[in-house]
């Protein structure tokens, strides 16, 4: 998990004292990170922006509950994951994305030029939705936290409240599902 710099720690301490000016600095610093995590879980630009707003407002309301600046990042992950889960639950009944040949072609193309590739948000959203569309909300969250955000199982357990065994099982299923898709399409 990313370690905070001294400046970030100082900003968090000021926010804990109710300083709204410093909170603006925190919003500017943390919003891109919150957005990227939410985007990778939800695969949607507008939803990720909504999660950024909701998360930052929750942070302001509850920042006094953070015991120290060091525990800020796991706490932030927990809020993002909860907000994303709420959103996924609301969207549960929407039709799932189906396998799109054009997106697979794009993935294949980008993978061959991995050193120079630069994906647009829309392309990335298409990829994420294609890869994780058939996974449950829990599997999707664990896959993103473990494989893309590179959190350890202990950290994921702290963020989601799940046991390590449960995390391993969900991750195994997600990887298996993805490998099947890779085998079929790439």
């Amino acid at each position: 998990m990313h370690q905070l710099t001294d400046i970030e720690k100082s900003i968090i301490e000021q926010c804990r004292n109710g300083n709204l000016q410093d909170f603006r600095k925190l919003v500017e610093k943390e919003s891109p990170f919150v957005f990227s995590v939410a985007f990778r879980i939800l695969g949607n630009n507008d939803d990720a922006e909504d999660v950024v707003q909701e998360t930052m407002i929750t942070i302001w309301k509850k920042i006094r509950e953070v015991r120290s600046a060091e525990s800020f990042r796991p706490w932030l992950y927990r809020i993002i994951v909860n907000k994303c889960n709420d959103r996924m639950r609301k969207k549960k009944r929407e039709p799932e994305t189906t396998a799109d040949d054009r997106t697979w072609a794009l993935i294949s193309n980008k993978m061959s030029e991995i050193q120079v590739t630069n994906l647009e948000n829309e392309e990335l959203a298409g990829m994420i939705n294609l890869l994780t569309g058939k996974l449950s909300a829990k599997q999707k969250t664990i896959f993103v936290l473990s494989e893309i955000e590179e959190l350890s199982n202990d950290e994921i357990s702290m963020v989601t409240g799940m046991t390590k065994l449960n995390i391993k099982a969900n991750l195994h299923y997600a990887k298996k599902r993805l490998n099947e898709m890779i085998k079929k399409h790439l």
Partner: protein
Amino acid sequence: MGNENVKYDDLIRLIQKNRPEMKHPDIVAEKIMDELQKGKSESAIKDIILEFLFGWIYIGWVRKSMIIAAAFFVLLFGYQQAVILRRINELSAQRINDGTLFMRGTERSLSERAGLFRLSGRDFAGKRTSVSKKDIDEMIKSINTLQIKYQDLIDQIKDDPELKEYIEKRMRETGKLKN
């Protein structure tokens, strides 16, 4: 299997390298700050109470369930109180009959009675009072019993003008006998 693993790793690396970027971070930051300023000035009491009572629950559906359960118990308590008040009101309005005397329970002021009726969800009937035929029969019976019991006393008073005059004087003084 080895080839699939390589492809999987490449795919993950591709997603890792491409961190999604916000299109308008300034606008989002502005919206957040506006929302906080608005919330701060309004100082929503409801939110403060909910945060105070349920802020420790992080899971959305658990928090909602707890709020619904709490609201249900508050309503149940209110309903029970209304039922108890109505029952007390009914009991206090019942006749007390010891065989000789006929009386009503504790009297309440008009405003007090109106308050109780409103709380218990009943229409307040104002000064209208309905008495059944059975009640009137029992009242007449108790008056007759009283008259029989005190007939001797009344006869003695009639026979003694001085005593009669004295009693009438005392009753006038206490306002129980009008001219």
